[in-house]
């Protein structure tokens, strides 16, 4: 597989994962705690809550997807390793990971009141797990350009696990 094909596939994987994370957060959130939250919100029924919740997951998922894409673009096209100290870039990765966590927790915190829906700790935990955990950390493990492929923490172990299978 040549480098361009690999790049296109990885961008596609990042986009597909973002969509998958949005779907997962929406369905799991709706199923686990959607009814209780719809009842607790003012002037809200379950289907209206779901509609607003979908808007929220979409916004969070897209911003998270941009974080993963941002890391990929930076590592693939912006970083140059022509010196040993230029390798790794884990601090940069950690910065984007922190941004991803801030998005996963901050967007629902700020945007949910604007949408008029109530959330609970389960939703925050779910967003952090799905968007930062799977939508950023896991997806960067599989899509980070090869020159930095072991920069996401535990990537070596995870990739080894998958390559064995």
């Amino acid at each position, binding site marked *: 597989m040549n*480098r361009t094909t690999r790049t296109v596939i990885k961008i596609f994987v990042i986009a597909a994962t973002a969509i998958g994370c949005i779907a997962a957060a929406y369905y799991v959130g709706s199923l686990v705690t959607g009814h209780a939250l719809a009842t607790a919100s003012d002037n809200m029924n379950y289907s209206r809550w779901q509609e607003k919740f979908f808007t929220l997951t979409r916004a969070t998922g897209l911003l998270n997807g941009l974080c993963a894409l941002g890391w990929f673009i930076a590592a693939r096209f912006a970083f*140059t*390793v*022509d*010196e*040993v100290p230029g*390798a*790794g870039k*884990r601090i940069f990765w950690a910065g984007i990971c922190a941004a991803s966590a801030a998005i996963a927790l901050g967007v629902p915190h700020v945007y949910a009141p604007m949408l008029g829906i109530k959330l609970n700790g389960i939703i925050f935990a779910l967003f952090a797990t799905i968007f930062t955990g799977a939508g950023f950390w896991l997806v960067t493990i599989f899509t980070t*350009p*090869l*020159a*930095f*492929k*072991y*920069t996401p923490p535990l*990537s*070596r172990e995870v990739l080894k696990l998958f390559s064995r299978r």
Partner: protein
Amino acid sequence: MSYYFISIGGTGAKVMESLTHLCIAGLLPNDERLYIAAIDPDVGNGNLERTSAALNNFVAFQNFSVGNDTPLFKNKISIVRPFPFNPTGHDKTLDDLTEYHQHSTGVGKLYAALYTRAERSVTLNEGFRGHPSIGAAVLAKNFGDGSNRTTLTAQIEKLIGEGDSVKIFLAGSVFGGTGAAGLPTVARLLRDNLADYADRISIGGALILPYFSFTPTDIGDELFARSENFLPNTKAALKYYADRENLFDATYLVGDSVMTAVKDFSVGSANQRNEAHIVELYAALAAADFFAQPTKKKIFKYICRHERDKFSWNDLPTSRERFVQFARFIFAYVHLVKPVLNNLVSGEAAAYKYPWFVDLLGGVKVTDPDVVNFSFYAEAFAAWLKQLETFGGREIFLIDPAAFESNPARIVDKKIFSALDGVQSKITLHEVWYRLTEPLKLESSVTGFGKFLRRLYEACAA
């Protein structure tokens, strides 16, 4: 077919150094085994020591599993022992070796008339001191029936006996002591010793003409080579060769119109460490050319350069692409790899930063002799190249000397890396790093540190 390269004297040793680098870079015409022998009474000679170090490194590299479908390390070598062959032994004079001075008859008187007292009594630990007449007498006596008969000649006889053909190439100067004495003497003795197999041996020679000069400093009345004698010596030697056309099947005359001044004069031994010179590279390429020619083709080669004070790739009869790829490979190693290995050993670096280390060197101990040897060799190659590129105030346009430094070897200007030979390529240091991490299918036999070197070499291809 087997190849023999026999270096004679200090200049021969320096040709051998260039040939070793060419071999390691895979620049010999095909993948026959090359047997390397050296004849030098000055066994502690600094030039020979440097060459021996490179050769011994190469012997170690042959154990690297780099695969068969690569030019890297493709020419296997064997060192013919004793290495070097010392025709004089230790602390011996011409009198000790010939014993003619004990004769009171005509032979003794003739000997006394032909050699001065100084020539007869000087110890030969540091070579024949620019006096080929001493060397010719010693070599004729000790090469023909000495211990080397049981190694070099016997080895060639064995190979021929097994049905092999053998090409033998001799290299040495015609203007000094050991080379001037050894080239014709050894060629003739080999022809005589192997006369029964004349149809299966071919002998070539690089006769190195004067290309350096020096000013002796404070050595009193000691006997030594004098550069003012180089041209008369050469004239006499060439006349001798002109009269003996059948000595070599292929003769390569290599010299220079400018005498490069040697920085630190030394009579011999460890202090004699002269810088590499492009004439030696040409002589090594002459060996490569000889090995590539069909057996028994009588050739005289004449090569000249396009511009008087300038050398460029157009003047060099070798594969530019392969040489440049090898130079990239060495510099990528010293710039990107060696510091990482050092940092990992000292615990200053985390392995995750270097995916190629995790993937390719995971099971390799970076303190292994293999790794240490290669790092040592990379330094030696950089030093050799730097010396080639910066001699005699003339312009050399092979590998850009502004790109790198030697001792320690390092890249000075990273931007020049992609244009090492003056032609811009897409091979930047980042590109090499990236390629090293990409999947590449290799034979299953390619393993360990050899696999890593093979990957790095492939990553440096234009």
